[in-house]
C-alpha cells in the first residue's frame, strides 16, 4: 500500500537553492573580516626526506608578513579522523613523507606577500629512499615511512566465517582473478578553505571551514592546539562539494587557527587547485584478488579476498575504509563462507581517504567483474546469476547484518528490463554492448565517540519552525531533507521550516557527512524532536477536540482526530491556545538518535549489524566502443534503486546522476598519474573528468521498500549509487568487444591494445 505524504516524497527545490543561484550563498572563501590575514603553506618537493633545518628568518623580515610557523613549533599531538589511526601533524615534524607534505606556514597582509614569503623560507632536506608501489612497500627492507609501523602496514584486517576451503571443494567452478583500481581525486569544485578568528580576552576560537565533519574537526583542533573543546567553535558555511575529501582536519584548519591565536587577527587559508589534487585526499588505489567458488547453476558457495590498499603517506580513515571494503562484500549477494584479508600499506604518495563509497567501489568492481567472468565460464546469464544470489530481507545473514528491507532481487530484474537486457546482451553488433553491476551501501558508519545525531525543533508563536541540526549539508540537500521530515511530522507546509545547521556552538552534535548516514541519523533525530513538539501541542489541545492526545493527527496545517479531518483545530490556533495556557514559547522538542549497530572494528571479531539499514541497487549500462580510436561512449545508464523511500525524489535523482558521472570517471577517464611520487596531472585540464558532452542518457527506477528504521522509510541514497556504474560499464565493454578488463581506468590505449591482441590471436 503506497503511503501518501504531504511533504516527504515530494520533488521540492532545495531549501537554499535561491541563494546559490543568485551567488549570495556564502562559501568559506566568501567570508571577509576586517584586518584579515592570508595564509599559505610551504610543501615538500620530495617524497621522503628528513627535515634537517628550516630557516624562516628571511620570510619573517619581509614587510607584511605577520607570522611564520614550522612543525618544530607546534604541539606534539598527532591527529586523525579515526582516533586509533592518528598519525599526522598539521606541519611535518622531523621528516616529510610525500611530495606535498606541509613543512611551514606563513600569514601576511595579502596573498602576494604570503607567496613571496614562502620563497624566502630555506629548508635543508636529506632525501631518503622512497617507495611508491604498495606491493614493494609491504616487503621486508622497504623504506620505513612511519616509525614503529612494520612493513609499512598500518592496518591488517582479517574477517572470516564459515569454511571457504570446504566451499571451494564443493564448487563446480573455482575462479581466482586479480583486479586493480586506480587512485581517483574527488575534485570538488570548491577548493579547501578555512577562516579562523580568535578572541584573546575570552580565549574563544571560531573556525569557519569547508568541512564535512564540524564536530570531529572541533575535537581534532582542540586536541592539537591543546585547548578545551568548549573554547573551539567550528562553523560550516556552504560547502562546494566534498565527496569525502573534506573529512579530516587539514593544515589549513590548524594553521588558520594557530595564526589567529598568535596574531589576534582573522586568518584565511584557501588551497590552490593543484594543492587539492596533491595534498588533500584521494580514493585508495587497491589491488584485490578474489577467489570464488560457485555451483554449477551459479550459486556463490564461498569467497576469499586478498586486498592491498595503497594508503599513501598517512592513515586518514584507514581502518574504517578497510572495514567497509571488507564488510560490504557480504551484501548484496549471499556469501555463506567468507575469508577476507586486507592490508592498508603506506607509500610515499598522496594520502588515501574517504571517497564516495569509501573502499567499496574498488571491492565492488572486483566482485561484479568476477561475477561476469564466472557467469561466462559457466555459460550462465550474468543477470540471472545476480538474481539467484541476491540476499533477501529478514533472512539470517552470515555476517550478522540485520536486513529489514531489501529490494535487490527486484532491482536486478528492473534494471535488466530497462536496459533491454534480453534483446541486447550478446546480440548487439560488435562495438555495442550492455552490462550490469549490483551494489549495497550502509546508512551511516559508526565511528568512535561521535556516533549519535541530535536535533532540536523550536516552534515560534507564528508557526515558524526552526530546526537545529548538526548535519553538514555539502550540497546533497541534507538540510532540505531534514526540513521535509520535520514539516511532515508537524503537518505544516515546507515553507514554514527554517534550518540552522552545522555550528558546534549552537547546534546539537552530529557525526557529519560520511558513510551516507545523514538522512537516517539526523533525519530520525529531527523526526523524533518534531514528534515531541507535536506531542506537547496535542497534550495541550486534546480537550478542545474532546479526544485523547494519542488519537490526534497533524496534517495540512490542521490537527484533528484520526479519521475526522473536518473537525479540526488549525495549527496556528493550537499554538495560540498553547501560548495562552502560559506555556513557554518557543515550543521546543529535542531528541537524539543512535544507530543500534556495532563499531566496524568490533565486527572483525564477532558477527553483528553494521548499519541501521542498507540501500540496494542494480545499475545497467549500454556502451559503444569506437574501435578506431578506442574511445568508449556510455550511451545509457539505468539504475533500479531501493533507498527505502526517497524523502525528495528530485534530490535522490540528483545524487544518482552525479554518481553516474563519478562512476564513469572512475571507469574510463580519471587517474591520478604519479611518477616517482609526484602527481603529474594536478589540474582540471590534465585530470579530465567528464563534461556535459560525455554524459549518457540516465534513468532511475525507484523501488520503495519503506524501511522500518529510517525516517519515513528512508535509507541512504547517493553513495551506494557510485559503487556499480564502473563495473556496469566495464561489463558492458566485454559484451561490446569481447575483452575483459580487470584494471581501471579502461582507457582508449588499453582498448586499442586489447583489440590488437585479439586480432593477432585470430
Amino acid at each position, binding site marked *: 500500500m503506497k503511503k501518501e505524504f504531504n511533504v516527504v516524497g515530494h520533488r521540492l*527545490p532545495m531549501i537554499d537553492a535561491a541563494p546559490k543561484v543568485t*551567488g549570495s*550563498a556564502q562559501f568559506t572563501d566568501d567570508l571577509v573580516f576586517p584586518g584579515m590575514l592570508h595564509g599559505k603553506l610551504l610543501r615538500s618537493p620530495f617524497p621522503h626526506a628528513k627535515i634537517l633545518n628550516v630557516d624562516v628568518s628571511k620570510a619573517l623580515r619581509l614587510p607584511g608578513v605577520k607570522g611564520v610557523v614550522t612543525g618544530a613549533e607546534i604541539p606534539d599531538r598527532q591527529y586523525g579522523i579515526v582516533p586509533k589511526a592518528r598519525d599526522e601533524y598539521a606541519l611535518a615534524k622531523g621528516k616529510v613523507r610525500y611530495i606535498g607534505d606541509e613543512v611551514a606556514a606563513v600569514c601576511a597582509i595579502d596573498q602576494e606577500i604570503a607567496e613571496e614569503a614562502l620563497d624566502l623560507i630555506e629548508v635543508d632536506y636529506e632525501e631518503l629512499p622512497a617507495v611508491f608501489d604498495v606491493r614493494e612497500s609491504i616487503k621486508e627492507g622497504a623504506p620505513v615511512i612511519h616509525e614503529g609501523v612494520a612493513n609499512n602496514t598500518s592496518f591488517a584486517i582479517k574477517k572470516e566465517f564459515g569454511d571457504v576451503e570446504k566451499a571451494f571443494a564443493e564448487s563446480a567452478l573455482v575462479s581466482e582473478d586479480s583486479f586493480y583500481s586506480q587512485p581517483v581525486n574527488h575534485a*570538488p*569544485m570548491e577548493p579547501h578553505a578555512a577562516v579562523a578568528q580568535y578572541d584573546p580576552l575570552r580565549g574563544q576560537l571560531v573556525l569557519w571551514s569547508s568541512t564535512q565533519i564540524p564536530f570531529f574537526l572541533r575535537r581534532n583542533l582542540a586536541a592539537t592546539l591543546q585547548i578545551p573543546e568548549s573554547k573551539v567553535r567550528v562553523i560550516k558555511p556552504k560547502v*562546494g562539494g566534498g565527496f569525502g575529501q573534506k573529512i579530516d582536519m587539514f593544515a589549513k584548519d590548524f594553521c588558520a587557527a594557530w595564526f589567529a591565536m598568535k596574531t589576534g587577527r582573522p586568518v584565511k587559508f584557501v588551497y590552490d587547485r593543484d594543492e587539492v589534487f596533491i595534498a588533500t585526499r584521494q580514493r585508495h588505489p587497491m589491488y584485490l584478488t578474489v577467489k570464488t567458488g560457485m555451483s554449477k547453476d551459479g550459486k556463490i558457495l564461498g569467497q576469499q579476498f586478498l586486498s592491498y590498499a595503497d594508503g599513501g603517506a598517512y592513515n586518514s580513515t584507514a581502518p574504517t575504509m578497510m572495514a567497509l571494503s571488507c564488510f560490504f562484500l557480504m551484501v548484496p549477494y549471499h556469501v555463506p563462507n567468507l575469508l577476507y584479508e586486507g592490508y592498508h600499506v603506506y607509500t610515499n604518495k598522496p594520502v588515501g581517504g574517504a571517497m564516495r563509497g569509501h573502499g567499496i567501489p574498488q571491492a565492488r568492481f572486483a566482485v561484479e567483474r568476477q561475477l561476469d567472468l564466472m557467469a561466462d565460464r559457466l555459460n550462465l546469464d550474468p543477470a540471472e546469476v545476480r538474481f539467484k544470489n541476491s540476499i533477501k530481507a529478514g533472512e539470517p545473514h552470515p555476517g550478522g547484518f540485520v536486513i529489514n528491507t531489501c529490494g535487490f532481487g527486484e532491482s536486478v530484474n528492473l534494471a535488466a528490463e530497462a536496459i533491454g537486457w534480453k534483446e541486447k546482451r550478446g546480440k548487439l553488433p560488435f562495438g555495442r554492448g550492455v552490462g550490469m553491476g549490483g551494489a549495497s551501501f550502509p546508512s551511516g558508519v559508526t565511528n568512535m565517540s561521535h556516533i549519535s545525531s541530535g536535533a532540536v525543533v523550536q516552534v515560534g508563536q507564528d508557526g515558524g519552525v526552526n530546526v537545529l541540526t548538526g548535519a553538514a549539508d555539502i550540497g546533497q540537500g541534507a538540510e532540505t531533507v531534514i526540513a521535509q521530515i520535520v514539516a511532515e511530522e508537524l503537518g505544516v507546509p515546507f515553507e514554514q521550516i527554517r534550518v540552522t545547521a552545522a555550528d558546534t556552538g549552537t547546534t546539537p552534535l552530529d557525526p557529519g557527512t560520511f558513510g551516507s548516514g545523514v538522512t537516517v541519523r539526523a533525519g530520525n533525530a529531527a523526526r523524533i524532536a518534531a514528534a515531541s513538539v507535536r506531542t506537547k501541542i496535542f497534550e495541550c489541545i486534546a480537550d478542545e477536540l474532546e479526544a485523547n492526545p494519542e488519537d490526534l493527527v497533524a496534517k495540512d496545517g490542521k490537527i484533528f482526530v484520526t479519521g475526522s479531518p473536518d473537525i479540526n483545530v488549525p495549527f496556528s490556533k493550537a499554538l495560540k491556545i498553547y501560548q495562552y495556557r502560559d506555556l513557554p514559547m518557543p515550543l521546543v522538542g529535542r531528541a537524539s538518535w543512535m544507530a543500534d549497530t556495532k563499531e566496524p572494528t568490533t565486527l572483525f571479531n564477532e558477527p553483528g549489524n553494521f548499519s541501521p539499514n542498507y540501500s540496494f541497487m542494480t545499475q545497467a549500462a549500454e556502451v559503444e566502443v569506437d574501435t578506431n580510436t578506442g574511445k568508449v561512449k556510455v550511451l545509457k545508464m539505468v539504475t533500479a534503486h531501493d533507498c527505502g523511500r526517497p524523502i525528495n525524489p528530485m534530490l535522490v535523482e540528483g545524487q544518482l546522476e552525479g554518481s553516474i558521472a563519478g562512476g564513469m570517471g572512475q571507469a574510463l577517464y580519471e587517474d591520478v598519474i604519479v611518477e616517482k611520487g609526484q602527481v603529474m596531472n594536478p589540474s582540471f585540464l590534465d585530470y579530465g573528468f567528464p563534461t556535459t*558532452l560525455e554524459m549518457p542518457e540516465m534513468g532511475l527506477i525507484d523501488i520503495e521498500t519503506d524501511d522500518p528504521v529510517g525516517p519515513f522509510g528512508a535509507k541512504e541514497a547517493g553513495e551506494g549509487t557510485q559503487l556499480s556504474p564502473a563495473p556496469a560499464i566495464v561489463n558492458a565493454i566485454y559484451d561490446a568487444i569481447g575483452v575483459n578488463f580487470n584494471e581501471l581506468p579502461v582507457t582508449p590505449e588499453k582498448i586499442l591494445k586489447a583489440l590488437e591482441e585479439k586480432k593477432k590471436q585470430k
Partner: protein
Amino acid sequence: MKHVITLKVNGDIHEVLISPNQTLLEVLRDKLGLMGTKRGCDLGACGACTVLIDGEAYLSCILLAMDATEKEIVTIEGLSESGELHPLQQSFVEIGGLQCGFCTPGIVMTAKAILDEEPSPTEESVKRKMAGNLCRCTGYKKVIEAVMSVPGRKEGQR
C-alpha cells in the same frame, strides 16, 4: 606600478586602484566585494569564474582587470532585478539544476550568454557550449534540463 581603472559592473561604475597583475576575478571579489563569481581553479579550466563581458561568456580568472575596462561586465549578482529571480535562475531552482551551488554562478552566466544569443537553442548546442563549465555534483542532466526549459517560460517573467 598601480593604475586607477574604471570598471562598469552590473550597471554601476567603479573606480579602483589595482596592479596590472590582478585578474578581473580578483578585482570583482576582493575589491568590489562581489563574491558570487567563484574561483574553482584560477587557470581557466573549469568555468566557475564565468562573467559576461559585452554579453559574451568570459573566464574572469584569465582576464586582466586592466583589459576589462570600457566593457559591460555582468556578474551573477547582476541577473536578478529588484530581488526577483531571473527566469533562468527560477528554472534552475525548480528543476534542481544545482546541488552544492559552487559551479552554479558560472553555469548560469554561461547559460545566459547562450540564451541571449540563441533564445531557442537545441540541446546539442547547449551541451556543447556548456562543456567548459565543470560540475562534480549534478552529472549535468538537470543543468541542461534547466537551461532547455527557459524558452518555454512566460515572457512576463522577463
